[in-house]
């Protein structure tokens, strides 16, 4: 089981690209977490551990190119290595969907990135799907529905 509290996607320049909250936080708390974690994670050296303690929970992060994927997890119930695997699966799926994903793809298709994330994690932060093929199939179905719906609207 996983109990992810939030997932943040931050660029090397400290800009937030995606954020998804699975626990209840006020806007002020969210801003504080983003600000503090961005500084904490970006200042860590490449060889340092990808897991750190933060407030009352743990933070697991992984860097892919110029993007940092940061997850807040429950220190008691969550598994850090499993969280790293979830991050990796999310990246792999985006990579397959966008055909070699880059920061620009996420900026201009953030809704698709959120859709993929929603297929990986449920709204309570637990895993909903681990199969990359299944996730991609679901997203492709959504894309088809969206396209045909738009076309129907135009033609009706």
């Amino acid at each position, binding site marked *: 089981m996983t109990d992810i509290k939030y997932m943040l996607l931050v660029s090397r*320049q400290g800009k937030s690209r995606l954020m998804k909250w699975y626990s209840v936080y006020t806007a002020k708390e969210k801003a504080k977490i983003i600000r503090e974690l961005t500084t904490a994670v970006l200042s860590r050296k490449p060889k340092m551990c990808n897991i750190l303690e933060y407030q009352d929970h743990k933070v697991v992060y992984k860097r892919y190119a110029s993007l940092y994927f940061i997850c807040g997890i429950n220190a008691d119930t969550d598994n850090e290595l499993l969280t790293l695997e979830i991050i990796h699966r999310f990246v792999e799926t985006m990579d397959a969907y966008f055909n070699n994903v880059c920061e620009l793809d996420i900026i201009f298709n953030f809704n698709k990135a959120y859709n993929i994330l929603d297929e990986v994690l449920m709204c309570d932060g637990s895993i909903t799907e681990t199969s990359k093929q299944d996730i991609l199939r679901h997203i492709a179905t959504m894309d088809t529905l969206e396209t045909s719906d738009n076309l129907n*609207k135009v033609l009706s």
Partner: protein
Amino acid sequence: MTESHFNYEFLQSGVRTAFQMPRNKVLLAFPKGLQIKSDILSSIFPSSKDIDCSVVRGVVWETKYYSVSIDLYVDEFDDLEKWLADLRGDDCIELRQALAGLIITLPIQDGLPKKSLNSYIEEIGQQDDYFTILMNLESTQDNTSWEEEKDEFALSGVELIGYLEEGLNEFGERLGIGRIREILDTHDWQEIHTSEDYTTYEITKSSEEGCDDLDLAKIIKKLEAAKLKYSTMKTEEEAKAFAQDIADELSEYF
């Protein structure tokens, strides 16, 4: 009055009018007499012409999602510290307000000019939607502190890039000129032209062409463009009106 180390041609030739325009200007600074200046400029901005001028207008920066017209201001310095001090000065307020970012190129042999860089970062470099790139012309292979300095300055919003670096690093991040292009790609430019604008263009263009020589492929293309355009509409009224227009137009063809 102290002697200025800054090229004020930018101020005289358009920044005042550019003040009201989008913040799409990039300032590039090179050491005086650098022979590979043109090579560097053309490798970052392959579409630019007149790269020997100090002001290059209307350089089209294009990605698969958008294109944007940017202006390049190219300057040279004898002493970076003094040049940065001038840039921080009151005389350059309007120029700073027009800039999207700064790219400084210099050979770093005896360590980074940290003092002047830190003053610059405190006063200018940490603005939102502003990038600063420092490109080292020297080889960074034997520089053991290079990677650490990269991380240190990245936190302050300054990207250190090695001109001679290429390919990808251990995280899959682009190095060298490729990284500069990536920073420019992901910068939050103002007044970009996206593919949605292109869609509008396609719809308008095919309407103007008339229906006499319109074939099926064109109709499908038009429908695809209309579909994309429709998906971006915010209000139902606007969408309905657009759908009605397209339907009326298409009915004429059949």
